[in-house]
């Protein structure tokens, strides 16, 4: 005979204001098997937990039902309490009467009735609960960081610092990411390259860090502590181990008209290239879309081979193929970063019509000493000095229609203030206008920085949006805008227009999320496990989030999150083994007909098939093909139990009979 204890939580007024908790405890006390039913103000408090522990001992409970918040919140708390009192933790069930009841209902009578039903369902389930014991699985002591921007670099350095091996996979030819393209950083105005490149070098020289540049993650298998990842090393047609980065090949290359991606196409590079002077690894890469020999147009082009002739170490290999490497990891940290959005849909700003309308990131390159103009700010169209520059904020950010992003991109207000100030400092004869919706400067020394732009550098900040940008024949640009404070329409004859473009997650993030079975929001930012309390972990165990892949961030915030993600990963890597989830699937081999339906739906590859010998009812022996679940790989998602046509698959802790008992209790 079961002896079940029911514990109804008030959660302060969170539950008690909408649910009559006394009535719930009273009603549930009459359910079959219930020997004690009581309510308490905060069941998760130490006193509340003691109430449960004492009751388990006093009444010899065989099952516990806690009517409280979501199991995601405190299931573990109550399981631990039960275990402390000697009850198997998997004999505890939670009835969620907060998120699924009190928070969503207003009427007390309705909410109370529903809370009682939810409690009854949990009681019906706990009747069928069996004690479960969690196994253990070993942890691979190596971490994978996906993305080699400042977020990925910082995470890798911190993990290596703790003594663990860590690999960085970077899709571009060099690590460094967006920060490498930035000229100066706010609010201190120090040179981005000067603070980033030492970290890049540190990463490359650290014996525990392996950098796979020009590489992509192509497959992920396994689970926390035991990921098996396939990394595709794209062919760069250059032997990384031989190349010294001398650059002779880039000089020899006859194809010099390749848009330079590092300078955002504002100048050209050769088909064989080193992205920039401080690239890590400093190795050449051939762009097969432009290389005359690899593209093979005319016969003369096909025999080009000038880079190979120029290379003194014989590093060039036109026949090099993509290479795949497989590696085991205990933890994976996603640091895939961001990109500015494409501006094709914003024709009102004439970005595609006029070369002097640029994005803010393009302006960074135009002002950078290693940029196309050697650091002198010149108009891209005629290389003249601009005397009037208009900045437009929120291009694609805080947009309520489908073409833009609904969120604030967070960094634009500050970098625009930085741009405005730098231009006024270097070119005092240039007038600078900034059109804004709001100026958002929450950050240490941020508002002071913005006020300096306005008060000390006389940047014209105008509240209002730009409606139309019209390039004119005389080379100037007519900017039509509204000044909302004086309620006027303005026309500014500008020489350049700079668009503070919204940022979005990198396009590789979405397929990666699918591979990692992690969650994303509607904007393709990775979702953290808890918005407040677990901001650097994904909801999938062993996957951590670093930098702007989780949401727009500036550099200090990115670095902070990168280190936080590293510390979470280290916390996992120091363990020799981790406790597995015992709520895994198993197949009833007598019912299994070997159809493979479960194998096809299993996202973890936990199900295999085996030929097994069975004694048949007529006393003969038959060999049948049956499913078998690897409990170390199974994550207990339950997809197989639904897919199985014969009902052979069942999930520990969530068996078919338990679910049906709950449904029956609700429908009774």
């Amino acid at each position, binding site marked *: 005979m079961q002896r079940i204890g029911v514990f109804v939580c008030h959660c302060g007024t969170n539950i008690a204001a909408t649910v009559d908790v006394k009535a719930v405890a009273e009603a549930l006390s009459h359910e079959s098997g219930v020997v004690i039913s009581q309510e308490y103000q905060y069941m998760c408090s130490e006193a509340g937990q003691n109430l449960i522990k004492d009751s388990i001992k006093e009444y010899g409970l065989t099952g516990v039902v806690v009517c409280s918040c979501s199991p995601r919140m405190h299931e573990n708390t109550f399981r631990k309490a039960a275990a402390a009192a000697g009850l198997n933790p998997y004999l505890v069930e939670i009835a969620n009467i907060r998120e699924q009841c009190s928070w969503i209902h207003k009427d007390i009578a309705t909410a109370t009735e529903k809370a009682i039903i939810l409690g009854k369902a949990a009681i019906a389930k706990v009747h069928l609960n069996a004690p479960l014991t969690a196994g253990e699985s070993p942890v691979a002591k190596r971490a994978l960081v996906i993305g080699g921007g400042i977020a990925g670099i910082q995470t890798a350095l911190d993990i290596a610092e703790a003594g663990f091996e860590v690999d960085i996979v970077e899709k571009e030819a060099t690590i460094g990411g967006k920060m490498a393209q930035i000229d100066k950083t706010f609010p201190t105005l120090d040179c981005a390259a000067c603070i980033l490149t030492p970290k890049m070098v540190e990463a490359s020289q650290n014996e525990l860090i392996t950098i796979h540049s020009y590489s992509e993650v192509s497959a992920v298998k396994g689970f926390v502590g035991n990921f098996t990842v396939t990394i595709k090393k794209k062919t760069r047609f250059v032997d990384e181990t031989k190349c010294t980065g001398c650059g002779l090949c880039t000089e020899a290359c006859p194809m010099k008209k390749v848009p330079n991606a590092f300078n955002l196409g504002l100048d050209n590079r050769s088909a064989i290239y080193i992205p920039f002077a401080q690239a890590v690894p400093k190795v050449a890469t051939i762009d097969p879309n432009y290389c005359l020999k690899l593209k093979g147009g005319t016969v003369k082009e096909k025999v080009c081979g000038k880079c190979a002739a120029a290379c003194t170490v014989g590093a060039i290999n036109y026949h090099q193929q993509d290479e795949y490497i497989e590696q085991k990891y205990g933890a994976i940290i996603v640091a895939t970063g961001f990109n500015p959005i494409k501006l*094709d*849909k*914003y*024709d*009102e700003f*004439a970005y*595609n*019509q006029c070369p002097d309308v640029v994005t803010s990131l393009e302006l960074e390159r135009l002002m950078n000493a290693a940029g196309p103009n050697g650091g002198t700010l010149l108009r891209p169209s005629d290389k003249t000095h601009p005397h009037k520059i208009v900045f437009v904020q929120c291009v694609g950010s805080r947009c309520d229609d489908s*073409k833009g992003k609904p969120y604030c991109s967070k960094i634009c207000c500050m970098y625009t203030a930085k741009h405005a100030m730098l231009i006024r400092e270097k070119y005092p004869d240039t007038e600078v206008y900034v059109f804004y919706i709001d100026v958002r400067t929450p950050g240490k020394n941020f508002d002071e920085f913005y006020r300096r732009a306005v008060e000390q550098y006389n940047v014209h900040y105008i509240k209002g949006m730009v409606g*139309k*940008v*019209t*390039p*004119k*024949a005389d080379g100037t640009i007519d900017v039509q805008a509204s000044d909302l404070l004086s309620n006027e329409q303005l026309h500014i004859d500008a020489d350049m227009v700079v668009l503070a473009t919204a940022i979005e997650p990198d396009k590789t993030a979405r397929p990666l999320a699918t591979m990692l079975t992690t969650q994303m929001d509607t904007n393709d930012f990775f979702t953290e496990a808890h918005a407040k309390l677990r901001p650097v972990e994904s909801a999938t165990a062993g996957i951590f989030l670093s930098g702007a892949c989780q949401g727009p961030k500036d550099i200090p915030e990115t670095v902070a999150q990168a280190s936080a993600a590293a510390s979470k990963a280290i916390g996992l890597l120091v363990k020799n083994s981790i406790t597995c989830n015992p709520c895994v699937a198993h197949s009833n081999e007598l019912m299994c007909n070997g159809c493979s339906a479960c194998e096809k739906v299993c996202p973890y590859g936990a199900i295999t098939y085996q030929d097994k010998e069975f004694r048949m009812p007529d006393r003969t022996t038959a060999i049948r093909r049956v499913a078998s679940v690897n409990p170390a790989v199974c994550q207990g998602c339950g997809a197989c139990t639904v897919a199985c046509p014969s009902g052979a698959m069942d999930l520990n802790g969530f068996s078919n009979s338990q679910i049906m008992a709950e449904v029956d209790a609700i429908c009774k």
Partner: protein
Amino acid sequence: MNTFTYYPGCTLRTKAKDLDTYARSSAEALGITLEEPENWQCCGGAYTTAKDEIATKLSAVRTLNAAKEAGRPLVTVCSACHNVIKQTNYDISKDEEMAAKVNNYLKLDEPYTGETTVYHYLEMLRDVVGFDNLKKQVVNPFKGKKIAAYYGCLLLRPSKALAMDDPENPTIIEDFIKAIGGTPVIYAQRNECCGGYITMEDKAQASKRSSKVMDSAKEQGADMIITACPLCLYNLKKNSGSDLPVYYFTELLAEALGLKEANNE
């Protein structure tokens, strides 16, 4: 099979005969039958399209209902008529109260609640004929001609109701220009108002706006401007002071299909 109810509108019977004539002849050449409903009335465009005014929208609904009764989609060609009819159709399908009021007035055999599909002639070319198909039937391509599309304010907006193209970065007329062999000219003012609406009230302002449009197109090297709007055409020609020729898109269509002599402006 490709038969449409065709609504010309009053301006196309008077000032804008070219827009109408060449729309009809070109459709015929492209294998499309346009049937005019009997006793059609003004689209209602001469009135304000204020949301709470029902009476001015009744004539648009009559046209829409005529197409519904004929069991065909409706095609329009004048930007203003299209705007009024399509917006009315959108409103009546979304706003039950308005639909009820309109039907109380009209006392139709069967209430009209936005069932008719409304095409602008350009949409018909794009979605029914297909620009690729049109290209194959061109006999006099506008080779080497730099043609600027002028959308004006009415053809694309409000974009939710008209749902023709992106209001800030439209491509439909440019694609049409490519189909008839010309080179489209992109210029910033192509989707801005020409000021035609205030010609009577403030001629100077209308002149300023229209010259801005013309200058912007000319600066980008346009040889001519094409439009679907009679009011824009009038205003751009008469008030801008520019010598850039302005034509209806249907004139170029007919010329490309070999149905019309070339313009010699």
